[in-house]
């Protein structure tokens, strides 16, 4: 299998699937969604294969494919996967079929919807696999188009406003990043005599501190908008709330990760000195985001908006973990990206199912649903617990590692961030209480059906993974560890920074299990 272009096929399969769905005859409307789900299982299979074949403990990029496309810009089709990206690729490939299969409530222009979702998948996987900055940028930017249409066409009332805001916010950030990319290429030209945008080549550059600082700034702005880091988050509630369920799921579970992934992949390794210098700034912003997101989530009257703001809080944890610059923090950050994708994806699915039944997302319109739809209530509670970080479920592993790792280098931030965990319990359990417990006050709530077989089937893989990653996180951590250690090694080599001894652990998985 060594020569089979597995990574390219991960990008090409969704594209081919989009073409296949696009070619279906217009009259066979009923086929669009099932065929879409079926073709999206192919990249999932490839991703599963990738996950299994991925060699644990190897810090370098694996399955590398490299082909120069345009020599003068040093631009090439350069793909590779390491411990940081492999889990995110699997997560993307897993959530797309689920999101598609959950979209039966979409009846208008189904074909375009399926095509847009599959194109989105190709772009998302491409972002995680790209090892060429220009290629990365191309994917990073191109996914805006299908996402824009998914929100603008199939969203709810204020969808055009939300979609445009989403597009412009993210495009603004990435435009400045493009400037940074060009500047990096020209730095390479100065230093090596060759203009290149290849990530691996660019790692060899020697950048002055001031150059690093401003380049870090433009990259961090682009990724910070995507994450979103407070105060760049204002597009997020609008986009999440207005998007259709599948859009919200992919937006929360995968798109936001592009930001944290970018920070980890590019900012930390390309600009290590700037990273070390700017840790305080990002730590403060992360903590503010954690608390702010949680507080605002608490007071939301709209269930979907509540979940959306909870993302701001959870992604704050990821950023804090990354910029703790310790083994535990980085590993926790990567794991928490996956965890957040699973739990928040599931919560958006559940909110969407509730909306399909009652056509409202207002918490005040519900109450006492536990008696009417007990299984649904159980699933919601389970995912809420996972999101809060109940030990034994996945969220705990990530948050614990992040707090552990950040306590070593940023104790004050870690202590404040710990309140975020408590607040998460407040907003999610309080929301559960108002929606599912108490007397049934609204008559329409009485007759609604509980989850059906299809919906259970959609949620089952997520539930299973939440438990697996909660009780046996090694399966993920082992794959992550070598690569995050390599990032820390690089920072230590390039700067005067040294990771404190307690912050350097090679066998964290075992500890988290205890």
């Amino acid at each position, binding site marked *: 299998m060594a020569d089979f272009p597995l990574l390219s096929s991960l990008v090409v399969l969704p594209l081919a699937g989009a073409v296949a769905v696009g070619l279906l005859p217009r009259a066979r409307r009923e086929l669009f969604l099932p065929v879409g789900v079926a073709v999206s299982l192919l990249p999932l299979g490839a991703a599963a294969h990738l996950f299994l074949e991925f060699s644990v403990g190897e810090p370098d990029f694996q399955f590398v494919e490299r082909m120069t496309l*345009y020599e003068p810009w040093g631009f090439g089709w350069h793909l590779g996967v390491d411990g940081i990206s492999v889990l995110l690729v699997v997560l993307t490939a897993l959530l797309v079929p689920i999101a598609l299969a959950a979209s039966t409530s979409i009846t208008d222009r189904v074909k375009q919807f399926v095509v847009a979702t599959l194109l989105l998948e190709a772009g998302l996987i491409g972002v995680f696999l790209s090892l060429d900055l220009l290629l990365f940028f191309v994917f990073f930017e191109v996914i805006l188009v299908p996402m824009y249409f998914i929100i603008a066409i199939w969203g709810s009332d204020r969808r055009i406003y939300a979609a445009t805001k989403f597009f412009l916010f993210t495009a*603004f950030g990435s435009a400045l990043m*493009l*400037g940074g990319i060009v*500047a990096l290429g020209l730095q390479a030209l100065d230093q090596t005599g060759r203009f290149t945008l290849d990530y691996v080549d660019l790692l060899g550059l020697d950048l002055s501190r001031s150059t690093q600082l401003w380049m870090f700034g433009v990259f961090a702005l682009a990724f910070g908008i995507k994450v979103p880091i407070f105060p760049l988050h204002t597009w997020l509630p609008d986009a999440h709330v207005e998007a259709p369920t599948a859009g919200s799921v992919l937006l929360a579970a995968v798109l936001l990760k592009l930001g944290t992934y970018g920070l980890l992949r590019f900012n930390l390794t390309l600009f290590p000195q700037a990273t070390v210098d700017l840790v305080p700034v990002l730590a403060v912003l992360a903590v503010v985001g954690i608390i702010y997101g949680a507080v605002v989530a608490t007071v939301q009257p709209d269930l979907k908006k509540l979940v959306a703001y909870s993302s701001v809080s959870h992604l704050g944890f990821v950023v804090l973990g990354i910029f703790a610059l310790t083994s535990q923090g980085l590993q926790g950050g990567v794991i928490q990206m996956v965890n957040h994708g699973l739990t928040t994806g599931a919560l958006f699915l559940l909110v969407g199912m509730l909306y399909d039944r009652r056509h409202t997302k207002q918490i005040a319109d519900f109450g006492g649903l536990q008696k009417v739809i007990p299984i649904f209530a159980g699933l919601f509670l389970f995912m809420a617990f996972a999101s809060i970080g109940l030990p034994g479920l996945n969220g705990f592993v990530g948050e614990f590692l992040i707090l552990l790792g950040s306590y070593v280098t940023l104790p004050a931030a870690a202590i404040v961030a710990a309140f975020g965990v408590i607040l998460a319990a407040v907003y999610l359990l309080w929301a559960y209480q108002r929606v599912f417990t108490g007397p049934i006050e609204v008559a329409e709530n009485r007759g609604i059906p509980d989850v059906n077989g299809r919906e259970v089937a959609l949620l089952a893989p997520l539930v299973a993974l939440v438990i697996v990653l909660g009780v046996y996180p090694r399966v993920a951590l082992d794959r992550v560890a070598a690569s995050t250690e390599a990032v820390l090694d690089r920072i230590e080599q390039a700067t005067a920074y040294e990771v404190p001894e307690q912050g350097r652990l090679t066998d964290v998985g075992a500890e988290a299990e205890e």
Partner: protein
Amino acid sequence: MSEAAGVSLMAVGPEVALLLGAVLVLMIDVYRNPPRKLLGWTAGTFLAVAFGLAVYQWFRIGAEGPSLSFGGMVLTDHFSVFARWVVLVLAAGGLAVGWGMIAESGRRAAEAIALVLLAAIGFQLMAASVHLVMTFLALEIGSISLYVLAGFTRDRVSSDEAALKYFLLGSFASAIFIYGVALTFAGTGGMSLLDVNAYLAGEGTETALVVLLGVALLLAGLAFKISAAPFHAWAPDVYQGAPAGVTGFMAGVAKVGGFAALMRILVVGFPGLAPDWGPPLAGLAALSVIVGTLLAIMQDDVRRLLAYSGVAHAGFILIGAIAGSEGQPAVWFYLAVYAVQVVAAFAVVAVVCGPASSSAPFGNFAGLGAGSPFLAASLALMLLAMAGIPLTAGFVGKFAVFVAGWEAGYEWLVVLGLVTAVAGLYFYLRLLVVMYVRAPIPAEAPGAAPARARVGAPAKVTLGAAILVTMVLGVVPGPLLDLLSDVL
């Protein structure tokens, strides 16, 4: 350099072919009342012959190197031949797109065809010329043809207004240009760009004020042609008033010709003065991207929107032009793909609003995505390309000019370009929303689109080709970029 200055018909072969075509079309029309198709095929044949000759020229230059002819006025090099290719493709596309209008204009069909061919001759010669008088003549041949085309549907007041405005302001710009020629002559004693350059190189560091003034006036005159701010005031009215069928051709070809002459003047005539013309050109570029983008945001008419976005695009191309000879590949790539985009965009406008229409309110495009998926998808792709979304040729063009501008030391300008490119997304997205999200306005209601004409076969082929070019050059731009950077 005037020793290599004999008369060589081959050097202007494509232009001669076009001229023969134009004359033949007019003669056919005089002697009998021919079927329109005969006129179209005649024009098409001569365009193909001209293109064939241009291809031949390309390979001959490859073998023998560039050559001067006509008393040092015409330089046949890869630069001029590539310009010919672009202009010829534009003319063919323009005729195909405007065919609906041309076929319906009765006895005047031949006139329109001949004017398109003559305009092509003018703008091709603009690129070939290395002599300021020749450049001026070419500019006038092309411009006057376009003035007449703008007023082609003369029973419509807005078309007349467009033509008159274009003519008056255009003549004013020509006057500025010719004054620049005079001052350059006064300062350097030559009007051939090669002589000018040789003179300035011998002059040393001090450059006379009169020369600088001359360059400034030359640039101002050309800034009008490429509709760079603050010389853009004519563009919205002309783009709106001229018949939609030919507007895309007018917009594209004027930019190609204007930029070709601009690059010739900068690179061949005054390369040594780069520190002098760089900053003002950067100012033009900055003003163009800002003014074009901000005003485009406020438009509710697709044609005015495309006009203002054209101003912004002039600014983007100028960012590459500042890099001088280093920037030429980027400039030409951008010009070629932009010209294709603008012709295709106006092709859709011509079908949706009628080929002779004079306005294109957003309302006409409501629901286009559901009603005519092919038209909507074509326009959407062109808009995304103009917005510079990756995987379209537009992104590659923007990236190329930004790299060139940054390398030339104009970092601030590139950053400004990036920011305005994002702001520009807003108005392109607005139109996408109208096409794909808004419900169509019912046929009887005010603001409804006119009954949609069938997309003619020539327009369909043009749109298909434009889509192909935009996608292919967006995904694999390497070959064309390589070709351009090898020869320019």
